[in-house]
């Protein structure tokens, strides 16, 4: 790989199609993410962001298309296999185990360390999310939305992933917490993690991402750096809510 001069992408998706029943939700989504990049998938409500991430994770079976992750073909693989390949997933609705404590939630996410990926322990995660440290034995169901959002990311990091999918991490959070979340994403990038996030919030995306894709009605309509997107008022007006 190194011989060719350019590294192959860490994650590449080609021509992804997906259906719910008869509804054609994704029609040919393609994207590619390099190691260490932070890439945002932008799009309005119902554009297909969540479905794209779920397809990558194996939670929704793609009807057609190729998904490669670190040279493995993961299209149609079971979620646990995708996770063990080094891809972590943080759902938009958080899905904390409400009857498990913070420590137990972390334990559920624990996987073996992985070569070439940062290694996480509860202590390192508590350093990253200081408020979680104070509630190790609190039940997941007794936490605020912001705390749950931190926990769900921490839980996924316990799998020592090389890349993490974050579905609308800033949704429904208070401005202070959103700022904290942006800080977290930057720290993850600094750790060497690749981050793919979905967002409707362009402001948040601008703060953390290197590059953006815009999805609309299940198709990628735009691809470019954040700077290019910032300069392109027409695209933003056409595809994003202002």
């Amino acid at each position, binding site marked *: 790989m190194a011989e060719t001069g350019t590294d192959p992408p860490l994650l590449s998706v080609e021509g992804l199609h997906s259906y719910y029943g008869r509804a054609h939700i994704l029609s040919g989504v393609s994207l590619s993410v390099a190691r260490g990049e932070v890439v945002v998938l932008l799009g309005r409500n119902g554009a297909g962001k969540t479905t794209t991430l779920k397809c990558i994770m194996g939670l929704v079976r793609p009807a057609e298309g190729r998904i490669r992750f670190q040279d493995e073909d993961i299209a149609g693989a*079971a979620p646990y296999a995708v996770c063990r390949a080094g891809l972590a997933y943080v759902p938009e609705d958080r899905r904390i*185990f409400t009857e498990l404590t913070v420590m137990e939630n972390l334990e559920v996410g624990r996987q073996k360390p992985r070569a070439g990926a940062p290694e996480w322990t509860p202590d390192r995660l508590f350093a990253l999310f200081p408020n979680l440290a104070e509630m190790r034995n609190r039940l997941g169901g007794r936490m605020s939305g912001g705390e749950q959002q931190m926990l769900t990311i921490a839980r996924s990091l316990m799998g020592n992933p090389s890349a993490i999918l974050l579905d609308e991490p800033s949704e429904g959070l208070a401005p202070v917490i959103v700022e904290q979340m942006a800080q977290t994403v930057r720290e993850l990038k600094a750790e060497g993690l690749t981050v793919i996030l979905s967002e409707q919030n362009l402001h948040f995306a601008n703060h953390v991402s290197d590059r953006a894709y815009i999805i609309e009605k299940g198709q990628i309509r735009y691809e470019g750096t954040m700077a290019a997107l910032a300069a392109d008022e027409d695209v933003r007006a056409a595809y994003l809510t202002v």
Partner: protein
Amino acid sequence: MGFYFTQFLTGLASASSLFLVAAGLSIIFGVTRIVNLAHGSFYMLGAYIAYSIVTSIDVGPVGFWLAVLAAAVAVGLIGVAVEMLLLRRIYHAPEMFQLLATFGVVLVVQDAALAIWGPADKLGPRAPGLDGAVRIFGELVPQYDLAMIVLGPLVLGAIWLLFHKTRWGTLVRAATQDRQMLGALGANQKVLFTSVFFAGAALAGLGGAAQVPREAVSLFTDLNIIAEAFVIVVVGGMGSILGAFLAAVLISELNAFGILIFPQITLVLMFLVMAVILVVRPWGLLGRPEFIARGPGEMPEAPYRPADGRLKLLGLAALLLLVAVPLAGDDFLMVLMVDVLLLALFATSLHFIMGPGGMVSFGHAAYFGLGAYGAAMLTKLLDTPMELAVAGGIAAAAAGAVVFGWFCVRLSGVYFAMLTLAFAQIGWSVVFQWGDVTGGDDGILNVWPAAWASSRIVFYYLTLALCTGAILFMRHLLYAPFGYGLRAGRDSPLRAEAIGIDVRMRQWHGFILAGAMSGLAGSLYAFSKGSVFPDIMAIPQSIDGLMMVLLGGVKTLSGPYVGAAAFHLLEDQISRLEFWRAILGVTILFLVIVFPQGLVGFLRQRLSRDEAAP
């Protein structure tokens, strides 16, 4: 005082085994969302295997408990085999298919047990080292009972430790809440499910094995235990281990003391307690409300098509054939066809609630039985004329459906199935135990039709007229607002409520109507056979009904009668074979796995495929 205390201890001792079974059932359900009807069979196998070990090897006090453990492990491994060979194929199937498949296992295990251990009850020897009795408050209490009293809380504690102090337990608790997320976090569901099935089955096996010195094990044990376990799980709350423990103690104490007050009807007491708890807390003492909510269902079903010209013609032709049956002059054929007609009505009434109503009853035979016993008892005890007795049978079945249905429609999905089954088993036990009134196992004999209907031909036409009328009536209702409301409630309860349909009320009415129709079939059945026996309201009869509906195809309206005819003719053949239960069980498994759309569904698929082809 001493006497009551011993009675209390007996209750506690009995609670332990029940707790073990119910806990296993609950753990398996929590993770896999499958209600395992074969759980009683696992208990029974545990008891038989332990019996075989302790009677063939000379075990000492330690050896005895090792034998009990060995039996539990053996049953756990059988559970693993069942999970890997069968359940893995149906985790995504509708609940009814899962329940039916596990009933297929019940039948296979029954015949296997019959082949290995024979038909006689088996009572094990007393446990070595615990074969004496202790005097407490002047009364003798068996030492073994005291050991059992310790065993329950011991296992409760062990389960708690396992669930809270091991990674496996943490994963199990996480899976109980959100299996999909657990998968996305890297846990292999297959391994987890299999291990959970091992644990649950082993608990049932342990319960059965430990009971060997206290109670004889018989081929009836499986269904009795599963019904009691269902009551415990419903009362304690699905998914709650502590709830299962409390409920097991409650129910066992109720039995222990109830037997002093109403020896014949302890089951009625049990029913009352269950009823009170379900009214106050529909999800059980310590259960979680979300388990009884309707899960995200399948895709809404295609609407029923009114019969087109071709189908109407086919129906008419079938009816003409039925009218012509007596012309053949074959008495045996007429008897067979009366059976088929009655079963068709029974199956159609079941389909009425389960297809359009979405309420899968695992106890529909209760209403068939109430109809039959109602009619038979009126005839025998009060010498009522047949016409009135049939009306009385219908009324008895309807009354049963009014009471049982009131509770059942409050629940849905597997909870509904479990409760209907538990009620039916209670009904069966009452009839079975209350020998003075119902004749118990000997049944009620000499229930003959009125003089005018006593000839085979007249009785045949009477049956044909009533069954056809009742079936057409139900079919008509489904195309009327009543049926639309029922289906709306099935597909989208919230939206149905929003447009002003009281879904629960509508379901209750549907349940009562189906009960009454099943009662009509039952009361005619009593007169056609001239006798009634408890079997006709036992669980296997309820399952037969489900088989007929399934065989015909749940999603079609004409499925039930086609299915009833096919099933009865099939059963007529295989019931002559020695291991017919196992054959039936394997047939069920085959149907569920390979042929889930049923006969009519299959034919329709073929037809529409042919039509679609150029």
